[in-house]
C-alpha cells in the first residue's frame, strides 16, 4: 500500500494533469477550489479521475468541507 505521502503526491500529479496546470504550481495544503479556480462540478470530475486511478469509491459527502489536497489524499488513503 502506498504511504500517505505517496498518495498525496499522486493526487497532486493527477490534479495538475487533469486541469492542465504545472505540477510545481500545486502543493498539498492548497485550496484546490481557489488554486485551480474550479467549481463543484469540476471538483467532481477530478474525483472521478482520482477514484479510477486509485480504484476506490469515495462518496462525495465524505468530501464535504474538504478543499485542500492533503485532506483529500487522506480520505482516499482511508479507502485503500
Amino acid at each position: 500500500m502506498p504511504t500517505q505521502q505517496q498518495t498525496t503526491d499522486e493526487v497532486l500529479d493527477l490534479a495538475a494533469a487533469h486541469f492542465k496546470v504545472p505540477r510545481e504550481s500545486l502543493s498539498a495544503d492548497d485550496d484546490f477550489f481557489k488554486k485551480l479556480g474550479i467549481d463543484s462540478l469540476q471538483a467532481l470530475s477530478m474525483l472521478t479521475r482520482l477514484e479510477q486511478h486509485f480504484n476506490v469509491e469515495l462518496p462525495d459527502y465524505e468530501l464535504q468541507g474538504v478543499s485542500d489536497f492533503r485532506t483529500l489524499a487522506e480520505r482516499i488513503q482511508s479507502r485503500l
Partner: protein
Amino acid sequence: MKSFSGNAISWEVRDGAIEVALHREPANEIGTQSLEEFERLASALPVLEESAHALIIYSKMSPGFSAGGDLRELHRRIGETERQAALAGIRDFHQRIHRVMNVLDASPLTTIAAVHGIVFGGGLELALTCDLIIADKTARFCFPELRLGLIPGFGGIPRLKRDLGNAVVRDLLLTGRSFNTTKAQQIGLVSQVVAEGEALRAARATAAQLGKFDRTTAAAAKKFIKPIPYDELRQEIEIVIELYSRPAVQAALKKFVESTDAQPYLP
C-alpha cells in the same frame, strides 16, 4: 419533421438512427424551453420511427449529459407567483415531462443514452428512459434531490426500481451520493463503458448492429422486457407536488440557487 434545430435540443436521422443532441447552456438543465422542444420530439417520433430503427440521445455540452431540472427556473416560478398557482404550474410541468419521458420509454425503437460528465437528477431520469446507457469514463451519476428535500420528479424512482435492485436504489436515493462508471456498470445501470469522448461513437456502432435485426421482433421483445410502471409514475407526481408545498423545500431551493459556495451540491 426529419430534422429539428432548437435552442435546447436538435435532432436528425443518420444511418437509421434518430440522433437527439442536447445543447442548452450551461449543462442541459431541463426547464420549460427544453420541455417544449422535447414535446416537439415526442410529437415527431411516430413519423421519425418509420425511417429509423434506433434513437440515440447525447450531449454536445462539455460539463456532461445533463445537470437535471432547471432549479433556477423552478425557484423563480415559486417566488414570482401565488403559492397555489405556483404549485399548479409545477404540477403541469411534471405532468408534461412525464408524458415526454413515457413516450421515449415506450418507443418501439431501441433507444440509447450516450453519456459523459454529469448525469444528474433529471438528466439521469432521461437516460433511464432509454434501453441502453453507454457511458464514457468521465460520466458521474447522481440523484441529488433529497439534498433539496425532494425526490426525483421526472420518473426516476419507478424506472430505477424497474431496472435495479431495491437495495441499490435505496443507497443511491437516500444518500444522494454521486458515483462513477465503475459503480454504474457494477450495479447494472450502464451497459458499456468507453474511453473519454467515445460514447457517441460506441452508441452509433451499437445502433448499426441493431439495424440488422427485424424491427417488429425487436419492438415486441422490448415491450415484453421493459414494462412501464405507469401507476408508480402517477404516484410520483403526487408525492413530488406534496413535497414542493413544504416551506423547507422552498428554503433549500433558495439556498441552492443563491449559494456562492463552491460545493452547492454538498449541503
